[in-house]
């Protein structure tokens, strides 16, 4: 397009355009001054190190590693927090060990039985009970610090209170929880 347009110019103008288009070579004085300045200038401190460059897969792997480290720190912090609470709760009762509390539930025809309550944040998955040798009773042992815990069984997906435990009215949700008290040693 441009060449075709230039054909329309007069020969004089076409020569002038051609001169303007040519790269004018720098003068020798200018070139020597430039080289001198470059040689004399201090080396910049930034950019002299290794330039880091990683592949995307490496970046993802690094991110996973960092997140794993972060998650570990979080888990450790949570564990420490729990340990502190346990220590606080047992300061006066002279027991720093959790009691292993045995929960049992008779349900010979049940397929699954789980335990939910304050001790597991009422998480739906619950703590699974195992069927005992007699085939009737389901059992689980849970380490618990001294305190009062509301709980319930989940039998084949349905909540079922513990018939062998005291009950406590749950006014928030209009239901009844079972209650276990774990006493510290004295």
């Amino acid at each position, binding site marked *: 397009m441009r060449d075709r347009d230039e054909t329309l110019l007069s020969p004089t103008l076409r020569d002038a355009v051609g001169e303007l288009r040519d790269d004018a070579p720098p003068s020798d004085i200018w070139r020597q001054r430039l080289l001198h300045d470059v040689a004399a200038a201090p080396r910049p401190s930034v950019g002299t190190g290794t330039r880091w460059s990683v*592949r*995307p*897969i490496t*970046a*993802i792997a690094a*991110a*996973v590693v960092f*997140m794993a480290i*972060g*998650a570990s720190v*979080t888990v450790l912090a949570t564990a420490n927090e729990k340990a*502190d*609470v346990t220590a*606080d*709760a*047992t*300061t*006066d*009762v002279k027991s720093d060990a959790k009691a292993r509390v045995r929960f049992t539930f008779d349900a010979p025809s049940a397929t699954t039985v789980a335990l*939910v309550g*304050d001790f597991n*944040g*009422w*998480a*739906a998955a619950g703590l699974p009970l195992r069927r005992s040798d007699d085939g009737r009773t389901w059992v689980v042992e849970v380490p618990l*610090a*001294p*305190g*009062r815990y509301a709980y319930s069984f*989940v039998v084949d997906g349905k*909540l079922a209170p513990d018939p062998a435990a005291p009950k*406590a*009215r*749950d*006014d*928030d*949700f*209009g*239901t009844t929880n079972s209650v276990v*008290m774990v*006493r*510290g040693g*004295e």
Partner: protein
Amino acid sequence: MINSRFFAAIGMTALMSAAAVAQSPTAELEGRISAATRDTIDRLIDSARAVGLPTGPIAAKAAEGVLKKVDDARIIRAVRNLVRQLATARTVLPRESGTGTLVAAANALQAGVSTRALARLAAASPENDAALAVGFVTLADLVASNVPPEAAASSIEQLLQRRAPETQMAALRSAVARDIQAGRSPEDALATRTKAVVQSLGRP
């Protein structure tokens, strides 16, 4: 190259999103309650965290409601009540009180015990957080057995002043419940049983 960078960015975003979801205290409830309800609960938990309240019991309260299949409005109400009770309990308990004590105090408030009564109990056991927690638990259980809250608080205050061990608290609770089941009035049962325990402990 552009494709690999694009997929790397997508991968990073997905991983970061997954991490963010995993960190949410109500992550377990995703898909089991409405997004709006979960947002509300997350905001309540954030506000509780901001003022230094324990968030675990609050998330557990929401999870309990979901597990019991109650409606979302009721879950939010229960969570909001718990946050309010924890905040009230925090104002009357020593700063160093543990989560267990704070939750026990909140439960006592929920049972109908007054803030003033909680403060009296805290003053009766200023240096023994574990005993205070046991006192609050016993108090809430007595009130649940139809003992008037103020009378129950006075009994527990006496026991805390005399440094009653946990076994005595448990014995009082069981004996009063037994007496009430046997037909005695809650007030009489409490007065009689408290007197017996106090006599066995001596002066504060």
